[in-house]
């Protein structure tokens, strides 16, 4: 540009530049003075990466795993878990189960208290469960109380009198629960955050803001001290908790970038990475033999859904052929590579008392035979279909591409296209069953095969395949009314056989492994467990060996 020189001797240009620079620095220092410096507060005994910023800390509202970890540090239900993941007494010190499995009588600990020192009573449970079921609360997991007599009726607004619901508090230390059918995993549910007690007075007084550090009252091993959005959460041992907590102060980082989490861990700024998704998948190969890398089987499965209402997947032979042609070993050794076990069943191993069916095992010859029988010999004439996956990280896309390659190699099908969609769009497409095939995953809600198997009842909220089998529906009902555990497990086994061997609306691909990073000499009380549920109250810091 051409500009004539300014006539004045002291042009404002230098002034503006200096002012700009000076102003920038002053602005920076001022902001820093007012808004910076908060992370300097209170050093913690343990710092951990929890995966992301929690959506909420209200036990009745939250549904995610990372929120659950925090909520279960702050709140405790009638039962809880030890480091191994076994159910142990929590707020209830003991309980009795009636012989028909329908009535549970819980006895609360006499020393049970809230973090403000107030005694915790059976009425607190009663009111908190009413809150979960109350339609106005809009608790997504309220169905966990539908096992109670009239629980569903109250939860869906069909009745409005809570005294008709199967939970009573005859006195301050006794809670009697009546179930509609013997629910073998009920004590698992009582350890889950949804069924935790919440301080109703605080909830009523502060509304949506009751979980803010300045208001919250809790009953678990920890109390919330500070919570800065996307910055950190600080929890401190609850002095009124019924047993001593060994790690006094825990700082929780919401870092959601796996590489950042790993950098923090590697430079000793964090002691524990709890979330599998917070460990960079590209690094797993390099670090999996390090002493700080820990992986354990975990109750979650990646599987393929067919839309059985669409051609050619309305033909079970085609579905079976595609299932038999998948060399899943290729997928776990080439793509996921964190030691995931190959899945031939939907229910992950590790459920006590449950023997899964064999499932369909890789057999390309049989697959080709079935495909030819269905009218597509050597993949000829196979229609154009697509495989839907979520583009969240590279994982699902890579798995889908490998499956596409395997089907092309084994069956000669070259008309399968990949269809990646952004997470929320993917969920929408899946729920509308607007796909041919869909790569999905399911994390069990509790340690029982039922959480996987009941998904596929006719028109189930998470069926999402269009598949329906009246026999399957009937068997689920029978199993729910069976009090004998062995008999019940046998029915569930037969149901899963229909699902993964006979009708095949889904193809299990691999089971997940829960990964975590910590130095074993710096953290104890963290044991691999099948539910990937690590209660912070169990943590301790090992004494330094001389």
């Amino acid at each position, binding site marked *: *540009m*051409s*500009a004539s*020189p*300014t006539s004045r001797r002291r042009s404002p*240009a*230098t002034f503006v*530049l200096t002012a700009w*620079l000076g102003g*920038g620095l002053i*602005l*920076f220092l001022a*902001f*820093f003075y*007012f*808004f*910076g*410096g908060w*992370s*300097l507060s209170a050093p913690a005994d343990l710092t951990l990466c929890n995966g992301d*910023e929690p*959506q*909420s800390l209200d036990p009745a509202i939250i*549904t995610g795993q990372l929120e659950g970890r925090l909520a279960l540090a702050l709140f405790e239900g009638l039962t809880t878990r030890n480091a191994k993941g076994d159910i142990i007494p929590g707020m209830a010190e003991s309980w009795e189960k009636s012989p028909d499995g329908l009535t549970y009588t819980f006895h609360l600990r006499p020393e049970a208290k809230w973090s403000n020192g107030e005694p915790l009573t059976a009425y607190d449970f009663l009111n908190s469960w009413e809150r979960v079921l109350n*339609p*106005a609360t*809009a*608790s*997504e997991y309220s*169905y966990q109380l539908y096992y109670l007599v009239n629980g569903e009726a109250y939860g*869906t*607004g069909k009745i409005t009198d809570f005294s008709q619901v199967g939970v009573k508090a005859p006195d301050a230390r006794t809670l009697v629960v009546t179930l509609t059918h013997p629910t073998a995993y009920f004590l698992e549910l009582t350890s889950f955050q949804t069924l935790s007690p919440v301080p109703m007075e605080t909830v009523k007084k502060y509304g949506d*803001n009751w*979980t803010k550090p300045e208001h919250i009252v809790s009953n678990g091993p920890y109390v919330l001290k500070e919570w*800065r*959005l*996307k*910055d950190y959460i600080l929890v401190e041992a609850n002095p009124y908790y019924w047993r001593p907590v060994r790690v006094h102060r825990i700082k929780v*980082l919401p*870092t*959601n*970038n796996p*590489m*950042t989490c790993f*950098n*923090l861990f*590697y*430079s000793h*700024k964090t002691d524990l990475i709890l979330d599998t998704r917070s460990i960079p998948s590209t690094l797993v190969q390099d670090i999996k033999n390090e002493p700080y890398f820990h992986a354990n089987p975990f109750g979650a499965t990646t599987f393929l859904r067919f839309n059985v209402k669409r051609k050619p997947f309305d033909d079970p032979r085609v579905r079976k052929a595609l299932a038999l042609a998948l060399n899943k070993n290729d997928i776990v050794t080439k793509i996921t590579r964190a030691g995931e076990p190959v899945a031939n069943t939907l229910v992950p191993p590790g459920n006590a008392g449950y023997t899964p069916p064999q499932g369909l095992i890789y057999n390309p010859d049989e697959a080709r035979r079935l495909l030819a029988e269905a009218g597509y010999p050597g993949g000829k004439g196979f229609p154009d279909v697509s495989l839907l996956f979520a583009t969240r990280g590279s994982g699902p896309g890579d798995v889908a591409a490998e499956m596409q390659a395997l089907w092309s190699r084994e069956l000669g099908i070259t008309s399968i296209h990949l269809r990646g969609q*952004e997470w*929320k*769009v993917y*969920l*929408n497409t899946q729920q509308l069953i607007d796909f041919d095939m869909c790569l999905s*995953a*399911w*994390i069990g809600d509790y340690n029982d095969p039922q959480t996987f198997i009941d998904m596929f009842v006719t028109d189930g*909220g*998470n069926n*999402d395949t269009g598949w329906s089998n009246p026999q399957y529906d009937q068997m689920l009902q029978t199993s729910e009314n069976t009090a004998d555990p062995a008999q019940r497990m046998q029915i569930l086994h037969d149901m899963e056989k229909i699902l993964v061997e006979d009708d095949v609306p889904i193809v299990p691909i691999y089971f997940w492994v829960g990964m975590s990073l910590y130095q074993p000499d710096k953290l104890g009380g963290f044991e691999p467990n099948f539910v990937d549920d690590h209660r912070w109250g169990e943590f301790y810091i090992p004494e330094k060996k001389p």
Partner: protein
Amino acid sequence: MTAIIFRRLLQAIPVLFIVVSLTFVLMRSAPGSPFSGEKKMPEQIKAQWEKKYKLNGTISEQYGDYLWDVAHGDLGLSTQYFGRTVNQIIAQTLPVSMVLGSLAYTLALLIGVSLGAMAAIRHGQWGDRALTLLALLGISIPNFVVAPLLVIIFAIDLHLLPVAGWGSLDQIVLPALCLSIPFIAGIARLTRGSLLEILQLDFVRTARAKGLSEETVLFQHALKVAILPIVGYSGPAVAGILTGSVVIETFFGIPGIGPFFVNSVLNRDPFVTCGVVLIFSLFLILFNLVTDILYFVLDQRVKLA
């Protein structure tokens, strides 16, 4: 001039209105809902949530409700972060981004102008060529490459600075540097180009003929004219840098507003998206106005309209 500024600010209102309207309608017509998750939410529960967030009516009713609230200074509730208002989220995260951004831009101006001036003086020599190449690299290498590289060198290998985090002075150095690199490069190129042109002009020749030292010619005479294009560049640049960076703030774990621009869309959090878009538009309008005023102050030929 006050009247002109006032008029320009009034003109901003329809602009902001259009921006918010478009964002809201786009967000609400995108497939997927704020309440869709891995498990299907029962209809009656979804209905409760939609009622709570005033997302239950037709899209025009929702839009009407939202505009009414915005006009009253209430940017709504986050559907992703339960119980947090958009106002609270912005109040907590925007200052963080502004601290980082103001430092980064100050750095960019200091280093950029100096490098550009050095290159112009050494026009055609190896120093100029090296700086031009560096500037090109600085502009073209994306943040998500620079940031991990700097972390590996300065934090992991040399242990000089922390890898991530927020709250102490050493934690701000690397992210501010990463954030400023493309701006340093941009400013250096602008300064060099502008200064080269001005050094050819008559008034510079006159100044040299008067026997003034090269430093005086450069700093007292040429640079103050050459700075004009940088002022023009700075308006949108400052608006952008003060409202945070998705990549830098995510990578360094900084609790700023930047990641909300992307994540709120992915989470279909309509009010947060609208809120952050509104803030960015406001900054853009304000800093463009500041730029115009500065032009007016610096160059008497410019008239404010």
